[in-house]
């Protein structure tokens, strides 16, 4: 027994030593010329073979030891990594040797940890073996240990829930700044209270029972296949709670999504177009109506594809940001130029996808101006932001538009500073085009 253990440690140490040489190997190689690189690669292969033979040795030496698997953990990984090392060293030459050094440092660290774990595992089995020899072995000790660990986990879990709700919850929670958002928030809080309660109670029961009813010598479980009353109770109670939540949610959802037609018309209309990887905003101008758009009219000068034959489009304004007057209902028309994007303003509790080929609408009323929000957050730089929330390509992570909520007067003032979509160049082009079209029509008429 003693001899076998010694063998094991020796082979593990040998492996570690060899691996540490490998991690020095490529580094040395790069400091010399390329011919040397080749030889080192060769050496490495031979060393790899060496390690494999050690693996074989270890395999034979530890055969028969109960938890011999531990040692393969260490040895198995080391031989795998060596193979990696030799192949990568030969292929890539321009990478700083330090990179490999660092990499093998971490590999080595992992191996050391594995070794420590293997040693601990070995110590435990020796401890158990001696106990067995002395006749003091308790076969349920391991079982009880796991039960205790589950109980400790329960404490950690409860602490984790408390910590995360107080710290991260605090980071993440900002009250909604729209009218419908406040309703969503109320419902969110109610749902959170219910679900957190359920989660905590279930975990206390689950892990608590696991601890209390751990296996003990000479005890027998209670044969209890079913109890219809209890089962009915815990079918009906969740059903009732969920019915309440469903009804609450259903009516909130309806009020958010089905807005009466007169309110739809009286709202401020704004159109937002998503494209890879930016948003364009179109305000209707003084006539209050957004002009038509036809994607087939898209050109370099008219990237939005606005149809200037529709006179409503002539005064359409291009917004640099999304600026909204506080307390006024806004109806957003969300469209997409290329692929699906999603129009998402977290602070407003607003989200709707931008889908090519169809227009989606979202109507809401902001209630807090950016200035007020900055005071509230105590952060003079805070801004609302609208971001893309549907995977759309390489710059998806940075497809945003600033949203500013201001007073009505400020809004009017801002709007007057924004440029029109129907620029002078476009006007000239359009005039020329319509002349040509007129020419053709007159010709055909004659």
């Amino acid at each position, binding site marked *: 027994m003693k001899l076998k253990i010694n063998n094991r440690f020796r082979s593990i140490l040998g492996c570690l030593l060899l691996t540490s040489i490998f991690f020095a190997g490529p580094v040395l190689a790069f400091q010399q010329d390329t011919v040397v690189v080749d030889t080192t690669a060769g050496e490495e292969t031979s060393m790899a073979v060496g390690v494999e033979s050690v693996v074989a040795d270890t395999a034979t030496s530890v055969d028969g030891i109960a938890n011999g698997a531990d040692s393969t953990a260490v040895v198995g990984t080391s031989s795998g990594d060596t193979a990696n090392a030799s192949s990568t060293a030969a292929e890539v030459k321009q990478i700083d040797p330090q990179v490999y050094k660092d990499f093998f440092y971490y590999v080595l660290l992992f191996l050391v940890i594995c070794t420590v774990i293997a040693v601990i595992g070995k110590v435990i089995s020796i401890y158990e073996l001696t106990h067995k020899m002395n006749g003091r072995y308790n076969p349920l000790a391991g079982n009880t240990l796991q039960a205790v660990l589950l109980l400790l986990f329960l404490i950690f879990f409860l602490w984790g829930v408390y910590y995360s709700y107080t710290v991260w919850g605090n980071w993440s929670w900002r009250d909604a700044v729209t009218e419908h958002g406040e309703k969503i928030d109320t419902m969110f809080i109610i749902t959170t209270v219910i679900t957190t309660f359920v989660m905590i109670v279930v975990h206390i029961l689950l892990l608590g029972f696991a601890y209390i009813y751990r296996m003990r010598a000479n005890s027998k*479980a209670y044969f209890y296949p079913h*109890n219809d009353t209890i089962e009915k109770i815990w079918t009906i109670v969740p059903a009732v709670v969920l019915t309440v939540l469903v009804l609450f949610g259903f009516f909130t959802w309806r009020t958010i*999504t089905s807005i009466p037609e007169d309110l739809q018309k009286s709202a401020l209309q704004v159109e937002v177009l998503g494209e890879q990887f930016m948003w364009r905003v179109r305000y209707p101008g003084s006539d209050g109506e957004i002009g038509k758009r036809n994607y087939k009219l898209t050109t370099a000068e008219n990237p939005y594809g606005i149809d200037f034959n529709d006179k409503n489009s002539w005064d359409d304004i291009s917004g640099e940001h999304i600026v909204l007057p506080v307390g006024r209902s806004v109806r957003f028309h969300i469209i997409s130029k290329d692929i699906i994007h999603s129009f998402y303003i977290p602070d407003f509790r607003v989200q709707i996808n931008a889908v090519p080929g169809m227009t989606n609408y979202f109507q809401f009323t902001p209630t807090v101006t950016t200035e007020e929000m900055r005071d509230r957050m105590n952060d003079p730089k805070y801004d609302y932001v609208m971001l893309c929330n549907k995977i*759309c390509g390489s710059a998806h992570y940075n497809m945003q538009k600033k949203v500013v909520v201001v007073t009505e007067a400020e809004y009017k003032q801002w709007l007057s500073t924004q440029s029109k979509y129907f620029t002078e160049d476009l006007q000239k082009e359009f005039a020329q085009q319509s002349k040509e079209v007129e020419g053709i029509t007159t010709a055909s008429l004659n």
Partner: protein
Amino acid sequence: MSSTVISHDAAHHGSHDHHHETFLTKYIFSQDHKMIAKQFLITGIIMAVFAMLLSILFRIQLAWPDKDFPILEVFLGKWAEGGRIKPEFFLSLVTIHGTMMVFFVLTAGLSGTFSNLLIPYQIGARDMASPFMNMLSYWFFFIACVIMIASFFVESGPASAGWTIYPPLSAVPTSISGSGLGMTLWLISMTLFIASQVMGGVNYISTILNMRTKGMDLWRMPLTIWSFFLTAIVGLLSFPVLVSAVVLLIFDRSFGTSFYLSDLVVQGQILPNEGGSPILFQHLFWFLGHPEVYIVVMPALGLTSEVISTNSRKPIFGYHAMVYSLVGITVLSFIVWGHHMFVTGMNPFLGGVFMITTLIIAVPSAVKAFNYIATLWRGNIRFTPAMLFAIGMVSFFVSGGVTGIFLGNAALDINLHDTYFVVAHFHLVMGSASIFGMLCGVYHWYPKMFGRMMSTKLGYLHFWLTFLGAYLVFFPMHFMGIDGVPRRYYAFTEFPFMEKWISVNILVTWAAIVAGLGQVAFLVNFFGSIWRGKKATQNPWKSNTLEWTTPVEHFHGNWPGEIPTVHRWPYDYSKPGHDEDFIPQDVPYSHTMSSNSYHDFEGDEEAIAIQRAWNKENNRSGEE
């Protein structure tokens, strides 16, 4: 092949199979359900490790968005030039991670392994109804895996439109490079995969319906079999819809049709497609996609039921309720898909309807969770690694399940849709819970699969690293989601409000790395024990189900003699009056007179009379 023929052969030749077995027929083109199960499992494990490595790569990017890791360039080449993963490759990683985990690991790796292993064993059959189709099912799956991995070696990179591959992003190669050849390979791979699943599903259903041994009526089937049966039904009805979605997408991509495309100006170029709708794809996709999450989680629930009952030494609480809740989940899973599409612009009233059906599905799920807890109550719990994983599974199922109540609520979903809250939710409830169900199955049935035991100590180490790791990885993500951080973001650096989460991301990534390294303990244990594990006894867990009545050594046909007859349900653990705390299913009531209750005879007057007489004779008070 009828089972009587095989039983005749098996009876005469003992443990020798009458076929001549070569390496090729035994290990490669095997038609034996046990070998196919092992093939599915090992392929599944390899895919899981691969997909896990992908997740570690993108976690590194998320935690240290401003740092270079030159070693990544060594492995990834142009996808990580200068040691920094490119945004497009990041999306590929996310996409392939999701696809592999959902389809290859948790669908094929879980259902494929345990349906194949346990259906014939637990219902008492010599093999599957159609062994050849079973073999084809594995090989289609294997080719699908190879093609998916091959897409990493394509110039334009693997598919990168997210695992949901919403067109037009997935349909128009100019919108993202991964939608070139990589996407084509994804679609081919998925078509083959679905063929594999359909073949498997047909087989599972016909085997369960037709090949149960004598006495194994439906209400005596273990919950594992119930769950595989219902899973196969769900798969069979929903996977073909994904094929139609995929085929139409192939048409759009390659033959110029416009099923999903309309009004597109991609990269300044006006596309000719008109009249299609991208929303159509989403409906087709989620008609599979939502049942898919139950395909993933129901087998895990079945395995967990069995393991919890066996190791609590107690019958599963409310067996009938467990079956009915599985049936309820099966039916409801087909009418809830719209909850993935609340904010796509779907008719809001329809959204409301989907919200109602979605929240109803929480009721059977809640019943299951409570029944597990009631099973633990007053048990005599033995913490094998399998049992720990089963408890972990219930924990994840509950913690992840309750957040479903937020997301199923259309009004709350407005703000949570596609954020990290969703990522946290489904990784807990279907990712971690199913993986834990799968691992619990592996630890529990390993002796049956390989005839050897796994190391318990390494199992414990594996469990604790994975359990803590999974919670530390996924729990914090809820809060990012509430703050409005979208999923599939390459970096959190462009938005001031996200910067505070980078510190949390570092915690998450370290937890992921430690949990990932923890899987080495599993791999060493799993592969090491195949050759070096302690030899298993025939029934190491003292379990009731039929698979433990087969000999440890495998041979084609499972039982050397007659297939045992089933006399009782599978959960007679710790039955009062019996000297041992388990009574296998094939033990007749005449052998257990001291523990029978009148209830056991289901109204059989003659048997009750015999039992009454016996009770009187032995002064035993049998409750009426």
